[in-house]
């Protein structure tokens, strides 16, 4: 029954900024501390306490502005959003309302047909995060931890340009990637560093837009997908059974995969925004804004373009590498500190190295200390000191720091046998008693050559230089 309906989605993404201290106080901006450990008198909303703006948050907002094609507003104003909640100590959240720091940006996302789609972003503003209420320790009480209070957030509000769960996930992951690349957000969704509010309504193609519902605080791609699918179906059912969708704020129940409206309020919210009289407007100069430009990190799409043009790496492989910023750090370090062909490095990286990282559940950055060893290993291969096969065998030990590649190769006696005399002897042994197959080869069967090469390699335990073996074999067989 859901055919003929389409969804219209706008996203509000809250990104916690990667700073040392909070937006308006010098408390540590840290996840996972003891309860109320990172709380000072300002965070706790004590009487007479006043906010002082952290410049790093403005810098991060400006960087985001450059990365997401925003207009960076020279004049922005912090306002108070007034409401009561136990994890909101001041009784208001300091946010930006009428004058946000960023407006009118966009992000391009990939479409299944290979094209890209432009998702327009209405605005992004700085605001304080709230604390946490813990409901599941005691049946009768909630416990309040204010550690998260005042953590800087950038709220990025898209236009309703998204039309499927796939779109949303693409947009969100591209946004996440970008923010991580420019060091604005650590992207850790599990820890709540990046959360999405999904605004969803449905319509018939070309038809009028329905009433939207907002699903709050989704912190994984899986939940985003589930919540959208469920809410889409729910709205369709409501309408097709003759009802109408009520504008509501929904919660997503991660255990059932369902959305349900938040406890209905006696009165609707009225946040009574007004400029925070404890703070003055942020007035930026062109100079301040432009100063940040040179320190801008390369963005994911810029990296792909450079890998393809400068390193001649396939676009698909480039995409795999840039999927995580850590990968590019490792990759570029190897490219820069060695003269091994980047294309070669890239294929080892996305192949055996990633496989190893995945298997051992490692942080890619752990490998940074072995980059020289890795490229040395690749060099041994390209210099024909060892075979590709031996290279693959040694790699895990190199990645575990068990030794330098050349030492490992020596110690294990794995140098490729490229000594012609030695190889000739091995080949002679291999050809011994193979008159029948030799005759086949001379009768025109090429397949036999492979058989002989394999046999020689086996007797060298893989150390024989296959190119040389091939060459000598041919010479001997043609005699």
């Amino acid at each position, binding site marked *: 029954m859901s055919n003929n309906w389409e969804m219209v989605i706008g996203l509000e993404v809250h990104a916690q900024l990667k700073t040392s201290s909070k937006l308006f106080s010098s408390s540590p901006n840290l996840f996972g501390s003891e309860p109320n450990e990172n709380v000072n008198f300002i965070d706790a909303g004590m*009487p*007479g306490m*006043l906010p002082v703006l952290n410049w790093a948050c403005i810098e991060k907002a400006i960087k985001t502005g450059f990365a997401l094609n925003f207009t960076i507003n020279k004049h922005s104003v912090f306002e108070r959003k007034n409401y009561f909640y136990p994890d909101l100590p001041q*009784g208001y959240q300091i946010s930006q309302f009428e004058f946000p720091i960023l407006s009118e940006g966009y992000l391009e996302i990939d479409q299944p047909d290979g094209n890209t789609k432009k998702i327009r972003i209405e605005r992004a503003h700085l605001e304080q995060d709230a604390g946490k209420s813990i409901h599941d320790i005691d049946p009768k009480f909630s416990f309040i931890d204010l550690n998260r209070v005042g953590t800087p957030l950038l709220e990025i509000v898209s236009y309703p340009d998204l039309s499927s769960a796939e779109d949303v996930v693409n947009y969100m992951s591209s946004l996440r990637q970008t923010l991580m690349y420019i060091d604005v957000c650590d992207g850790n969704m599990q820890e709540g560093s990046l959360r999405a509010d999904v605004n969803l309504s449905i319509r018939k193609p070309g038809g009028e837009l329905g009433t939207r519902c907002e699903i709050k605080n989704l912190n994984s791609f899986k939940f985003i997908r589930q919540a959208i699918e469920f809410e889409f179906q729910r709205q369709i059912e409501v309408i097709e059974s003759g009802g109408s969708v009520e504008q509501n704020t929904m919660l997503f129940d991660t255990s059932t995969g369902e959305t349900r409206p938040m406890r209905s309020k006696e009165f609707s919210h009225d946040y*009574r*925004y007004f400029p925070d009289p*404890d*703070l003055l407007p942020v007035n930026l100069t062109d100079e301040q804004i432009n100063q940040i430009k040179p320190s801008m990190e390369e963005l994911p799409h810029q990296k792909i373009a450079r890998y393809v043009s400068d390193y001649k790496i396939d676009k698909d492989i480039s995409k795999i590498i840039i999927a995580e910023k850590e990968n590019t750090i490792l990759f570029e370090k190897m490219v820069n500190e060695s003269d091994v062909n980047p294309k070669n490095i890239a294929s080892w990286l996305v192949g055996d190295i990633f496989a190893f990282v995945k298997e051992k559940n490692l942080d890619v950055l752990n490998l940074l200390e072995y980059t020289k060893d890795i490229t040395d290993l690749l060099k041994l291969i390209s210099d024909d000191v060892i075979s590709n096969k031996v290279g693959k065998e040694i790699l895990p030990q190199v990645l575990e720091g068990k030794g330098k590649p050349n030492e490992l190769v020596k110690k294990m006696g794995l140098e490729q046998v490229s000594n012609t005399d030695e190889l000739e002897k091995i080949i002679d042994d291999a050809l011994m008693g193979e008159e029948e197959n030799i005759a086949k080869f001379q009768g025109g069967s090429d397949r036999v050559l492979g058989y002989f090469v394999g046999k020689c390699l086996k007797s060298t335990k893989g150390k024989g230089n296959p190119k040389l073996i091939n060459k000598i074999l041919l010479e001997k067989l043609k005699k």
Partner: protein
Amino acid sequence: MPKKQSISSLVNSLKEKKISVHELFDQFHKVAKENANNSYNLVLDPDYQKSNLEISQERYSNGKNLPLDGIPLGIKDLFCTKGITTTASSKILSNFIPQYESFVTQQLLNDGAIFIGKNNCDEFAMGSSNETSHFGPVVNPWKNKNSPTEKLVPGGSSGGSAAAVAEGSCVASMGTDTGGSIRQPASLCGLVGLKPTFGSCSRWGIVAFASSLDQAGPITNSVEDAAYILNSISKHDFNDSTSSNHPRDDYLKEIDKKLDHKIKIGIPSDYLKNVTPEIIAQIENTKKSLAGYDIEFVDVAFETTDYALSTYYIIAPAEASSNLARYDGIRYGVREEGGNLDDIYLNSRTSGFGDEVTRRILIGTYVLSAGYYDAYYRQAQKVRRLIKDDFQRVFQEVDFILTPTTPNEAFKIGEKLDPIAMYMNDVFTVPTSLAGLPGISLPSGLSANGLPLGVQLIGNYFQEKKLLQLSHLIEKELSFNE
């Protein structure tokens, strides 16, 4: 009234060992402890101050005394004082013990001052008579000579501070002024009250009423004492984003300096439209007292005076409604139990706030609410700019502005029940507050009932030094006239 002892004379007595720091403290503490006028919410006893007194005495003994060493000061109970209960005269904060010291009181401590106690005030500084305090009204030490048994208000909101200085229980007291809360009680208690330029004295650690208006300042016996205190407290504070880094002067130095050029003082005719002859007489007295100086008095007229109170009673409650949202019974203060969280909020706040505070929270909530914001709050902010510009226009013509401080003398406790009638008390002080200008109230004479009245002198931004110089002159000449 008790004999006035100036800070400079006390410092000299301490230096010359005519009196010890302890003896001085005891002398004031004895009066404070009686709390005859309910001017204290809390009096600190000599035991509590023992080590401070000793250290201060030691500095005198070493000849290394600080500017305010050993001087007993009252502190309005709106300044957070570390380890000392700070209530804002509200039930909801009646058990609150800050773990931090306000910037301003820290400066005073750094300069050697000794605190006598926390002065009563209107609840959250909202009031003009000190009758809204949870701890009961403060009584003005002055009596109507025609009706001496009547208990009069000291003015507000820094009523306890003014009464304390007037009764002689402290040398000076720190007040705060949002719409007249230093100047008006100073006037009604026959004292000097200075509200510095907004941004001169940090708001850090002062329980907020209306952030864009609140300003700390002294209530003192003399202009010179005000200069002593201002020297201590007027400093840039990085932790208050609205604190100005405008250079500060030494306000004491050259306070005696003669006028070196002709001064023009504007008297706004619109301030004198509906006032009693007795109030007009204060302005006339002041003019007369300065007759021998090279001072020209000119009539000036403001275009915005009629709108100042309305503007103030939108902006101040709006900011207050938000500033007071943090008092919810969750992290500090008095919690009233309830079945669920919402009940705790509702019960704690309803029972924790008095009538006037409740009223102002309601006004503030209303003027910010959807559908009314533009008509009230935004309009008030626009008019506020017109008021500021109006002052700047007048300051193109004159160096200072002279006005009455209050439209009336001290009135009876319980007399003014109508809130709007009460708000009218601040009609002369509010415009200055909205413009953020410095204003000082000086005793100018006595009413027919023998009660003190004052005049207000307003200067341009950060002109405190000149303002105090001129005030010092007026003070000298007016007392000579008396």
